[in-house]
């Protein structure tokens, strides 16, 4: 009897849990349904010429077609390789310079003026200059992505190292930590929340710049180029399919990559709450 009641209660709670979940999904989907309906109406009424404003079915068909033929994945992979190369470059350079600036007054005095002059210029403004210097193609794109996304990484690593609490340093020293230990066990973990924020901002920046630079640098493959190239042939459906892929990758980078890293490090250490 008792058992039956417990199972019953559990069942009800599972069912209501499931219903709760369903409601959440429905609630999240509802705005997209509304926007999708508005889109369809605009497409069918013909405010814009049909070629320029395809219906959602056409976009979906083009998405499926481009994915099956392997064109879309190829573009996406090329873009991702560029992103990772440029971002790795920026990460190594940015964290090194930032930490150096935070640790040594001399490095700070040397780098800070250069960084503060370079940072406020929008990254894309450098693009034509890089294209002239390094030619069209991959080298320019990767270098520009690396250069531009290094700035937020430098700033945040610098701030992070400076924000390490004085008392942690002193207590570690009092307990007999030497310089190397101090650095690897106190300063680096202490600055990590900032450094991670910097990397996150840098990656977002890299992603934004990369899409634009692919349009300008005449690379043979890449999502930015796909969108830009499709414009010439009025393939609006392919353009929208490309934009969808860009959104998905952007979302995945943010949600999957960085939240995981944060959960494993700073959240687990209790330095920030999730």
């Amino acid at each position, binding site marked *: 009897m008792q058992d039956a009641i417990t199972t019953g209660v559990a069942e009800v709670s599972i069912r209501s849990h499931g219903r709760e979940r369903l409601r959440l999904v429905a*609630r*999240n*989907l*509802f*705005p*997209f349904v*509304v*926007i999708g309906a508005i889109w369809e109406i605009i497409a069918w009424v013909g405010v814009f010429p049909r070629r*320029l*404003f395809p219906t959602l079915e056409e976009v979906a068909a083009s998405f499926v077609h481009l994915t099956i033929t392997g064109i879309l994945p190829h573009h996406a992979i090329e873009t991702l390789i560029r992103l990772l190369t440029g971002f790795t470059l920026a990460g190594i350079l940015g964290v090194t310079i930032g930490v150096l600036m935070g640790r040594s*007054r*001399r490095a*700070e*005095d*040397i*780098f*800070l*003026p*250069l960084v503060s*002059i*370079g940072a*406020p*210029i*929008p990254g*894309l*403004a*450098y*693009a*034509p*200059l890089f*294209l*002239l*210097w390094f030619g069209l193609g991959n080298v320019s794109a990767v270098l520009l992505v690396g250069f531009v996304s290094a700035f937020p990484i430098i700033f945040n690593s610098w*701030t992070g190292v*400076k924000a390490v609490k004085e008392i942690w340093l002193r207590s570690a020293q009092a307990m007999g930590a030497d310089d190397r230990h101090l650095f690897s066990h106190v300063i680096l973990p202490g600055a990590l929340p900032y450094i991670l924020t910097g990397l996150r901002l840098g990656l977002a920046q890299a*992603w*934004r710049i990369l*899409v*634009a630079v692919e*349009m*300008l640098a005449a690379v043979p493959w890449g*999502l*930015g180029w796909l*969108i*830009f190239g*499709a*414009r010439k042939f*009025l393939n*609006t459906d392919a*353009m*929208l399919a*490309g*934009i969808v892929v*860009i*959104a998905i*990758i*952007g*979302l995945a*980078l*943010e949600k999957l990559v960085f939240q995981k890293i944060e959960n494993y490090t700073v959240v687990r250490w209790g330095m920030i709450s999730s």
Partner: protein
Amino acid sequence: MTERGQHQRSLLRGAVTLLAAAAVYEAMARSGYFAPALLPTLPTVARALITSIADGSMIEHAAFTLYRVMFGFALAVAVGLPLGILMARFSRVEHFFLPLVSALMPIPSFALVPLFMLWFGIGNLTTILIVFYAATFPMMFNAWSGVRSVNPLWLRAAGAMGADEHRLFWKVIIPGASPFIITGMRQAFLRAWIAVVGAEMIAASDWGLGWVIFDAKEFLNTDIMLASLIVIGMIGFVFERFVFGSLERMTVLRWGMMRTAKG
């Protein structure tokens, strides 16, 4: 060493760095290893900057860019700020817009430029809309988190002292959220400034700093390119430091809600 002496030494070192960087650049430009068309000497760049300012063309380009950026930015504030506040106040609004925002936010504004060009043509409308798109999200997000982070104690205290909804909103919630709102404006402007340059390059009209840079590339006018880069950097810097800096000083810093940023 005194704090003042340290500060002076920092300034001196900074100046030395900049001079050294300029000297290295100048040496590279004059060494003849690189084509002078690609790496003009500093006097050439300075001359290009001065002539273009003197004949008014640079000023006109900057004016066009500023017009687009301000228009788009104002639109973004007009839409993003109320929407963010509404999202924080009414869960129904939040449930509707939050999924949309999270889906749209990861799309870089440049990805939309070719699409907007097809829809709205080349020129002001496209650039302004791209700026609007880029600037709205940071504005909205910051307003939203700002209103949500207003200390509940203040709300209850004001309620206990008999504030009605209207007063509560204008006297407690808005000032309480203002550090976030100002940060949002700052970020929104930065985004807008980046977006306008990119949009001008791709959706090229006849005027605008982004267009000058891109156009100068075709003719290998590297000196003009560098000159416009300087102008772009300076305008961005001025806005960041003076406009938003003083806005912050006049409001949240004076109200004692934020400490002065270090450095």
